[in-house]
């Protein structure tokens, strides 16, 4: 670590780990409910478990992005964070809002809009919290000695993510208009501005881990984020095919969402090529695993599996089925969860001054979580395709189909157990590193 204020990132990462564990617990509650083991139904019905599961995903990833920014921006700007105390205030208030939201979901305190269940009053607190975060990042960047492309792309991603939260706060009488603008938030986040954040973190990690010239990496960063927006903005149309808006989206959404895998392919090729060109001498092999892994798995999960059901002719049958859950799980894992775990793996040795680069638990964490998640994705995929044929082609009743495919959820639970074991090992490693220390400042392990 080069700047003392980077230590604040550690506590964001610690909150990430806690929220990730909770997300997995609620995932298991849903998995067991799907095979008929719903003993918690009276306390945690499925809709509560799902709201908690998806919202915790969003919150832990955002917490990870914020931690990443607090680590990366001082180093890129060559400037201590302008106000460390306010960064801690931001962290605590973020945690409080998150806890209130999660507890509230158990008492019907929510908005009931997929992914944006946080009730309106808490929405305003989220806005204040994010404004404080952005203020600190922008002020640090402004005061800094240099303004690198990596820092600017990362900050732009975070800024646009905040701005795009606003359309989701508008009330509409029509379910169709409501869904239309809800996708402005959800799609333009995950298939737009979050990719800027991912690109920024990936660029930072590749510069540090491969030793390749910054100018080369940042040039390709522009190309990748350019491809992301070129395809991703109009690709929003794939959510508008069958929700009650004009047919023009079938054409526009079909063409541009079919191009979306290009950005992820470019990102995978970019990461692999930079690694090949690099010195391969960085001792933190685990960070390299997670970084290159994120670029490859995001291409498979977000790119390939997204393409599998993005064309209107296919989506007519797969829309509203478990095929979406298949794509969603591997896409979020590869693109966002893995890049957050990558920056944590890189930052923790630097923040604590300890080296556990050859740890067996660390390697097992990577492989078990990835194999587990690929197994889960396969289980969702098989269940989803079977559901499409039985429900949409053979015209069977919903619950008859659900009973037929329940065996795939047994497989899902087994694979989720493998995945969870990997995550537990990752957290064990995180704890073993201990807390950040000023002594690490002199060590300069980067």
């Amino acid at each position: 670590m080069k700047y003392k204020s980077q230590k604040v990132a550690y506590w964001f990462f610690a909150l990430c780990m806690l929220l990730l564990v909770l997300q997995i617990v609620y995932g298991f509650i849903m998995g067991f409910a799907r095979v008929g083991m719903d003993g918690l139904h009276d306390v945690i019905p499925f809709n509560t478990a799902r709201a908690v599961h998806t919202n915790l995903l969003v919150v832990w990833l955002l917490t990870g992005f914020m931690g990443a920014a607090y680590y990366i921006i001082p180093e890129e700007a060559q400037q201590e964070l302008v106000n460390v105390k306010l960064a801690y205030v931001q962290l605590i208030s973020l945690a409080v809002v998150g806890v209130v939201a999660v507890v509230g979901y158990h008492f019907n305190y929510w908005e009931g809009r997929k992914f944006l269940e946080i009730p309106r009053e808490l929405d305003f607190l989220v806005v204040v919290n994010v404004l404080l975060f952005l203020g600190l990042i922008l002020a640090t960047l402004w005061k800094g000695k240099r303004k690198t492309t990596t820092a600017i792309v990362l900050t732009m991603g975070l800024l646009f993510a905040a701005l795009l939260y606003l359309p989701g706060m508008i009330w509409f009488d029509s379910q169709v208009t409501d869904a239309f603008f809800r996708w402005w938030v959800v799609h333009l986040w995950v298939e737009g501005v979050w990719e800027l954040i991912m690109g920024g973190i990936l660029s930072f990690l590749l510069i540090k881990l491969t030793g390749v010239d910054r100018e080369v990496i940042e040039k390709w960063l522009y190309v990748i984020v350019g491809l992301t927006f070129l395809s991703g903005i109009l690709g929003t149309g794939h959510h508008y095919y069958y929700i009650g808006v004009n047919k023009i989206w079938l054409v526009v959404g079909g063409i541009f969402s079919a191009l979306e895998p290009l950005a992820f392919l470019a990102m995978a090729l970019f990461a692999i090529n930079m690694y090949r060109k690099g010195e391969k001498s960085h001792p933190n092999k685990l960070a390299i695993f997670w970084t290159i892994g994120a670029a490859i798995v995001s291409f498979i999960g977000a790119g390939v599996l997204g393409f599998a059901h993005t064309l209107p002719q296919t989506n007519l049958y797969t829309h509203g089925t478990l095929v979406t859950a298949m794509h969603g799980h591997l896409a979020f894992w590869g693109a966002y969860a893995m890049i957050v775990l990558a920056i944590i793996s890189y930052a923790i040795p630097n923040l604590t001054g300890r080296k556990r680069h050859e740890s067996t638990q660390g390697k097992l964490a990577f492989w078990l979580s990835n194999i587990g998640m690929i197994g889960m994705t396969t289980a969702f995929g098989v269940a989803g395709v079977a559901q499409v044929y039985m429900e949409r082609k053979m015209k069977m009743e919903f619950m008859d189909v659900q009973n037929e495919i329940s065996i795939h959820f047994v497989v899902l639970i087994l694979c989720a157990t493998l995945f969870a074991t990997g995550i537990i090992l990752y957290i064990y490693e995180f704890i073993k590193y201990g807390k950040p220390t000023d002594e690490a400042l002199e060590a300069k392990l980067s």
Partner: protein
Amino acid sequence: MLSKSQARAFFLGGTAVTFLIFIGLTVYSLSPKNDQTNHQNIDEKVVRGKEIWESNNCMGCHTILGEGAYYAPELTKVYERRGEGYIKSILTSPIPWGPKGRKMVAYKMNNADADAVIAYFKWIGEINLNGFDQVVSPLSKEK
């Protein structure tokens, strides 16, 4: 070979152009002449139904217009498929509805709220979904 400034121009230019097209298409598809939702039929009852739908996070189990949680049946065509009486009995039931082993929360709605949710389902069921309405609920089309 591509320079960094050319790459930046590609990013900024491509983003600006596609965003402007996106805004244009949004205005076009939401304009009243392109309405496919019978927007004029959204009355106080339908709006109340939507509020109840959201305040109970029905989308956390069911799907509607193909969006939701895939745990409980798709409800886009439920009004046509099941009819008013069937839906009302579930919404007002004091005991949890649990067909074929999967439980639903007992919402114990009063008549006015149940009627509002039914009005909301009726409005949803009449939306032109570009062909999805025939795929999502073939049972209703066979009647």
